[in-house]
């Protein structure tokens, strides 16, 4: 058979989680990393503000506080054993990144610099704590570069610009991956003992998003098609501060450095919603606050955006009012020069896309679809679990945004995604390599590429009048309008009907590119089918959950309901329909209580 490769471990995706998995697995197992992009194009590179770890380099901090903040941030839906594991691993893994050469910013005494971030607090005083380890406002870029460089150093095998189309599961075990080589249009079979999905998010479901074009949820869609459920898909994070209309991310680090949100009346409004930590409340809280201000007519000029203001005079005024201090106890102040130094990329984005200079002008922002808390269900070793009893599917692993461990529950804290990818990428890689050592290859099915070929053929041979771009636009608008920050039974039902309509229409497209080499039109169409499937599962999961929790805010059920809904959603696609079931949340030390910032 042509184009068959054999590896102990195959990693799909080359962002932070995939590279970390590849780096660790390749130490003991023959490993390949396949990715639809060149690794350094992955969206980990867009992460800005920092990676969370209780190093305590600037003030007292503890992994227990990080754990509690994450549990609280998750609105108690995160699994506490996994959260504790991640937060305890955090300091060591940040040191490990530093030992790999990651150029963190430094404190005056030469240690890794840290800044405050939303939801991260000193658990005694309740005040924001400096926990986000940063490299200017391009921490994700530095993680991605450093891990790719280490993979080169360690001779990891890469298959760049290979699009995974199918995961092979034989006799209840993972057997490999089928992928399309974009440069030739040929299918390849990667026969593997263990497969690790690290395919990232699916923010491209929504119109206004911080996510890259590539983030089309391929891993989750592949898994769903092979009968694996998706967990907690209704929980999707809208980051409060996206550039108005474009959705490009403006890091929470801006508020960490003292920036504040200002409404159309020129007022700082976050103290009304989060009296203690104000602008550094967790993301779901801040995004809802912005929507509420806009709804009350207090957007800028009555429009649907507010300002994020990091001008030194504004920062200094509110820092003085808040009594904010430096680590040595002196009053916190900043200058335009310092802001430029700490947030160079943000300033560059605003100058480029808005013609606004944040040192002298406020930035127009609106909430932007940012991060999937839900995904392929795993345990804390990255093993994929496929039912309510957490039964492991041997040989299949997932890590990073495409996975749901769940460490983020109903709402992820800023800096925890970079932490998640390195911690669980590493452990998935280690586990997969160990598993591969003790097992044989599962024989491939007779026609391993059959299902992948069939999906592409259906798109190639469709001969209708529909247009991929048009369907995609309609999906994004529908999801942003009706499955956004606030939801009701009515809006979600509307969205679900619309998605069903679009799923039907996508069968009647007509592609104009009939070639094999870099047929990106075919690829866009296939990715759209993934996005539509995930939009459907997201909406169906959301409709069923009759409460508000974290990123899932229902106006018709405005309260959290622990009696009925303190549980994880599992959603399957069966016979063209979404089927739902639930599994319990792991609670160890922290009993759910009201969440106040």
């Amino acid at each position, binding site marked *: 058979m042509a184009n068959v490769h054999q590896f102990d471990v195959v990693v799909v995706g080359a962002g932070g989680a995939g590279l970390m998995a590849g780096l660790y697995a390749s130490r003991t197992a023959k490993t390949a990393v396949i990715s639809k992009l060149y690794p*350094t194009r992955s969206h980990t*590179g867009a992460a800005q503000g920092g990676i969370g770890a209780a190093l305590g380099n600037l003030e007292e901090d503890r992994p227990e506080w990080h754990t509690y903040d994450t549990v609280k941030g998750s609105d108690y839906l995160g699994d506490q054993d996994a959260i504790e594991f991640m937060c305890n691993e955090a300091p060591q893994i940040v040191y490990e990144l530093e030992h790999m050469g990651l*150029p963190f910013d430094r404190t005056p005494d030469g240690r890794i610099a840290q800044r405050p971030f939303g939801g991260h607090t000193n658990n005694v005083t309740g005040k924001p704590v400096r926990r986000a380890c940063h490299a200017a406002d391009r921490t994700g870029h530095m993680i991605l570069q450093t891990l790719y*460089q280490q993979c080169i150093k360690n001779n990891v095998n890469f298959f760049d610009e290979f699009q995974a189309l199918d995961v092979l599961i034989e006799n209840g075990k993972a057997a490999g991956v089928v992928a399309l080589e974009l440069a030739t249009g040929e299918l390849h079979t990667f026969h593997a003992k263990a497969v690790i999905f690290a395919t990232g998010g699916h923010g491209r479901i929504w119109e206004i998003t911080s996510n890259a074009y590539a983030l089309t949820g391929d891993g989750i869609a592949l898994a769903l098609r092979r009968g694996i459920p998706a967990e907690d898909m209704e929980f999707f994070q809208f980051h409060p501060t996206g550039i108005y209309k474009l959705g490009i991310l403006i890091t929470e680090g801006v508020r960490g450095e003292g920036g504040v949100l200002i409404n159309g009346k020129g007022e700082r409004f976050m103290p009304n919603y989060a009296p203690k930590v104000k602008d550094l409340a967790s993301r779901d809280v801040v995004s809802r606050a912005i929507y509420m201000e806009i709804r009350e007519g207090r957007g800028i000029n009555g429009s649907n955006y507010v300002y994020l203001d990091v001008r030194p005079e504004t920062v200094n005024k509110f820092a003085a009012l808040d009594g904010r201090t430096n680590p040595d106890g002196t009053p916190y102040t900043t200058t335009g020069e310092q802001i430029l130094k700490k947030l160079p990329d943000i300033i560059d*984005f605003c100058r480029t896309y808005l013609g606004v200079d944040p040192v002298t002008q406020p930035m127009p922002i609106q909430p932007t679809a940012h991060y999937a808390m839900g995904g392929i269900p795993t345990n804390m070793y990255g093993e994929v679990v496929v039912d309510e009893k957490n039964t492991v599917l041997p040989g299949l692993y997932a890590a990073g945004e495409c996975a749901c461990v769940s460490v983020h529950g109903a709402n992820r804290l800023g800096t925890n995604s970079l932490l998640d990818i390195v911690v669980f990428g590493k452990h998935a890689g280690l586990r997969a390599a160990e598993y591969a050592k003790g097992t044989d290859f599962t024989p491939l099915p007779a026609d391993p590429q059959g299902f992948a070929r069939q999906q592409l053929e259906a798109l190639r041979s469709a001969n209708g009048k529909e247009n991929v771009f048009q369907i995609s636009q309609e999906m994004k608008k529908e999801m942003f309008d009706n499955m956004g920050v606030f939801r009701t039974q009515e809006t979600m039902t509307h969205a679900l009907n619309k998605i069903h309509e679009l799923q039907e229409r996508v069968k009647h497209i007509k592609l*104009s590119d009939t070639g094999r*080499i*870099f047929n990106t*039109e075919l690829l866009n169409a296939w990715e759209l089918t993934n996005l539509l499937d995930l939009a459907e599962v997201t909406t169906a999961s959301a409709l069923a959950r009759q409460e508000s929790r974290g990123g899932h805010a229902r106006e018709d059920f405005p309260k959290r309901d622990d009696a009925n809904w303190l549980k994880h959603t599992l959603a399957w696609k069966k016979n063209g329909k979404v089927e739902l079931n639930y599994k319990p949340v792991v609670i160890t030390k922290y009993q759910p209580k009201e969440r106040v910032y």
Partner: protein
Amino acid sequence: MQVTLKIFRYNPEVDKTFHYETYTLEAEETDRVLDVLERVKGQIDGTLSFRRSCAHGVCGSDALRINGRNMLACKTLIRDVGDKITVEPLLGLKVVKDLIVDMEPFFDNYKRILPYFINDSPPPADGKERLQTPEQRARFDETTKCILCAACTTSCPSFWASDQYYGPAALVTAHRFIFDSRDEGAAERMHIIAETDGLARCHTAYNCTLACPREIHITKAIGELKMATITGRLD
């Protein structure tokens, strides 16, 4: 406003040689060139092929020649380039299809300069970070910004002459490590970049600096490397 795009087209499965296609469509002056390319592909001609991902200048996928200059399509607005826009693939790398070039020689060159942190000394006994002062960290800050988009390397006349030249991007990465106080691979890298395909091929045309979407002063960084190979000093 109405914009007219003249786009380089080449489909190896059909065409004997390249040609240009012209498309006219409505756009806002604040649209990115990438937005307009997406609309051409989505609404007018689905066969147009190009790479893109993040759409805000951090992933480096969509470096293209726009009105004759290397830029990221996602970081260039219509108002920056006017309503008549010519879009072509990067020079110096083989065109695979339309605006997509073969990136392999570029990444091969990158790999030749040992693009990874080298320090085989044991980390501090307490397991914590190696110390580095803010000043030491600032020494190589600028060259950590590189996104490997290839805009610099493919604007360089020396690279056009020979793709055996490492090119500016690889040298930027060499700078990032050579001037990192924690790294111990400087001597080895300096030896590599002092070879024929290295620094000697930089004739300070300055194109790289003008092309860099991350505003890295590449010519200056290469100048610092040249000085270091002459003096043997890294300050």
